[in-house]
């Protein structure tokens, strides 16, 4: 059982390069710039702020040293150990970061033997703010150097590293998936409001849907969490099916790269082959690596062998890892490995008896079952079954989004419209979202 992780109690941390590499082609300004960008990787997504100082009182002292340099981790010449950093804490070395000056430190170099300074610095600063090594090969915190991670100006942390650091410090407001919808977009300063006539300068947005009285454009399980999309917003549930926030998040603030004019999505699913996330709208689709769209998208859905007109639903069935696309009364079975629609499709009668003939979306869940959504209801098909489980459909809002039993007249009435669960919450459902104020994000990854 690893010791409890240590982290900084303060959010503003100073840093300074105290000693520079002696025989390196990298000039001092390059080294300082690389340190700046390596720290920025972490401050971009957490509430931490780093600023460079000149004095010796910096929180994070950065040194290039050789061999034994008076700490517990002597270096060993070229190769072997290349750097280390000290975890946050009360000791005077907390946060300090040491690079082996016997290494050939490089930047944007094709030299396979060099050591990319930006890459190693991102890793070491992960330690300096509290992260320990992990075995995950995609993580920046795995212990072995595996070559440059890419351009410092464009590098983004792998998803598992983001979640781990969010667990230590929470999410930086600007990337928070549950940021208050009426907070102005940081990139685009909001249009100046009319001269105040005792109205609030930022009128609450009218288009925010209410989770208890709507049906959803798309539903997907992404990295074990459930996402319910409606218009330009989405709700997120953690792996143990807890609603992250009563407030919806804005799609464009979290899923980076969708065109801002996109007012909704048709379907979303996570590809089993590479865990990338595919968004569909009309005849186009986008592929996301983590929450950033990949280069070259959107592309036409004909790539999947689908006809124009878009799709209503998409999901990959846990039973055979095939991907199913639905449109009106038709469905296509698609093989992610051959990247082709299976022969005999489209077809009319999908494999699961009892699901509705048209769908809003479908998803597989961590219990192995398949869930089909239409209107304000959902149908459940147990793992390895081919028929809807008895007692379905059930109300989506009550079972997934912490809403009260839908009353016949609750749609419009003030009392029931928010339908939020209170004392009536079903067993296993928290009657309060973890983030009552809709502000912080609690992502549990296990």
């Amino acid at each position, binding site marked *: 059982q690893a*010791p409890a992780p240590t982290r900084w109690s303060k959010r503003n941390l100073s840093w300074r390069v105290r000693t520079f590499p002696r025989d390196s082609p990298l000039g001092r300004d390059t080294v300082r710039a690389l340190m700046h960008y390596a720290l920025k990787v972490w401050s971009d997504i957490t509430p931490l702020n780093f600023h460079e100082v000149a004095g010796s009182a910096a929180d994070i002292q950065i040194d290039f040293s050789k061999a034994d340099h008076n700490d517990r981790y002597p270096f060993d010449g070229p190769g072997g150990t*290349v*750097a280390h950093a000290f975890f946050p804490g009360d000791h005077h070395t907390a946060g300090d970061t040491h690079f082996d000056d016997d*290494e050939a430190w490089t930047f944007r170099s094709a030299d396979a033997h060099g050591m990319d300074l930006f890459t190693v610095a991102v890793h070491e600063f992960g330690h300096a703010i509290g992260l320990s090594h992990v075995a995950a090969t995609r993580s920046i915190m795995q*212990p*072995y150097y595996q070559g440059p991670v890419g351009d410092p100006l464009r590098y983004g942390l792998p998803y598992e590293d983001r979640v781990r650091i969010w667990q230590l410090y929470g999410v930086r407001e600007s990337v928070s998936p549950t940021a208050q919808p009426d907070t102005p977009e940081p990139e685009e300063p909001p249009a100046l409001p009319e001269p105040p006539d005792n109205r609030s300068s930022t009128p609450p947005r009218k288009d925010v849907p209410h989770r208890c009285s709507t049906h959803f454009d798309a539903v997907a399980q992404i990295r074990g969490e459930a996402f319910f999309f409606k218009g330009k917003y989405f709700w997120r549930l953690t792996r143990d099916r807890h609603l992250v926030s009563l407030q919806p998040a804005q799609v464009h603030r979290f899923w980076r790269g969708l065109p801002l004019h996109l007012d909704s999505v048709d379907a979303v699913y996570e590809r089993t082959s590479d865990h990338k996330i595919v968004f569909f709208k009309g005849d186009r689709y986008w592929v996301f690596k983590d929450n950033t769209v990949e280069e070259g998208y959107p592309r036409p859905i004909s790539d999947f062998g689908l006809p124009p007109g878009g799709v209503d639903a998409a999901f990959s069935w846990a039973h055979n890892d095939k991907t199913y696309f639905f449109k009106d009364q038709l469905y296509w079975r698609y093989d992610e490995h051959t990247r082709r629609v299976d022969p005999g499709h489209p077809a009319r009668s999908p494999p699961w008896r009892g699901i509705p003939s048209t769908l809003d979306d479908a998803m597989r869940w961590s219990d192995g079952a398949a869930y089909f959504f239409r209107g304000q209801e959902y149908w459940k098909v147990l793992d390895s079954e081919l028929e809807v489980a008895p007692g379905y459909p059930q109300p989506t809002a009550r079972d997934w989004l912490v809403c009260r039993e839908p009353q016949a007249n609750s749609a419009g009435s003030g009392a029931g419209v928010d339908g939020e669960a209170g004392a009536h919450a079903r067993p296993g459902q928290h009657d309060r979202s973890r983030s009552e104020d809709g502000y912080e994000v609690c992502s549990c990854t296990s």
Partner: protein
Amino acid sequence: APAPRAEDLSLGVEWLSRFGYLPPADPTTGQLQTQEELSKAIAAMQRFGGLEATGILDEATLALMKTPRCSLPDLPAVILSRRRR
């Protein structure tokens, strides 16, 4: 797999101790590792490094031990002290 050479074995034991897979060698008693402890430590290191956990100091494992890396241990010392108890 062919039995590792003596120098590989000593490199391996020193490496495993340095990165938290074995308790640090006790200079006074010159503590020797049991074969079983060594094999467990090798398997743990192989799992952490994404290799097949054979528990044997094979080529791939030795190569990974020679890969440039961060100096910090992979497993926190607390595990070892617990194991020693």
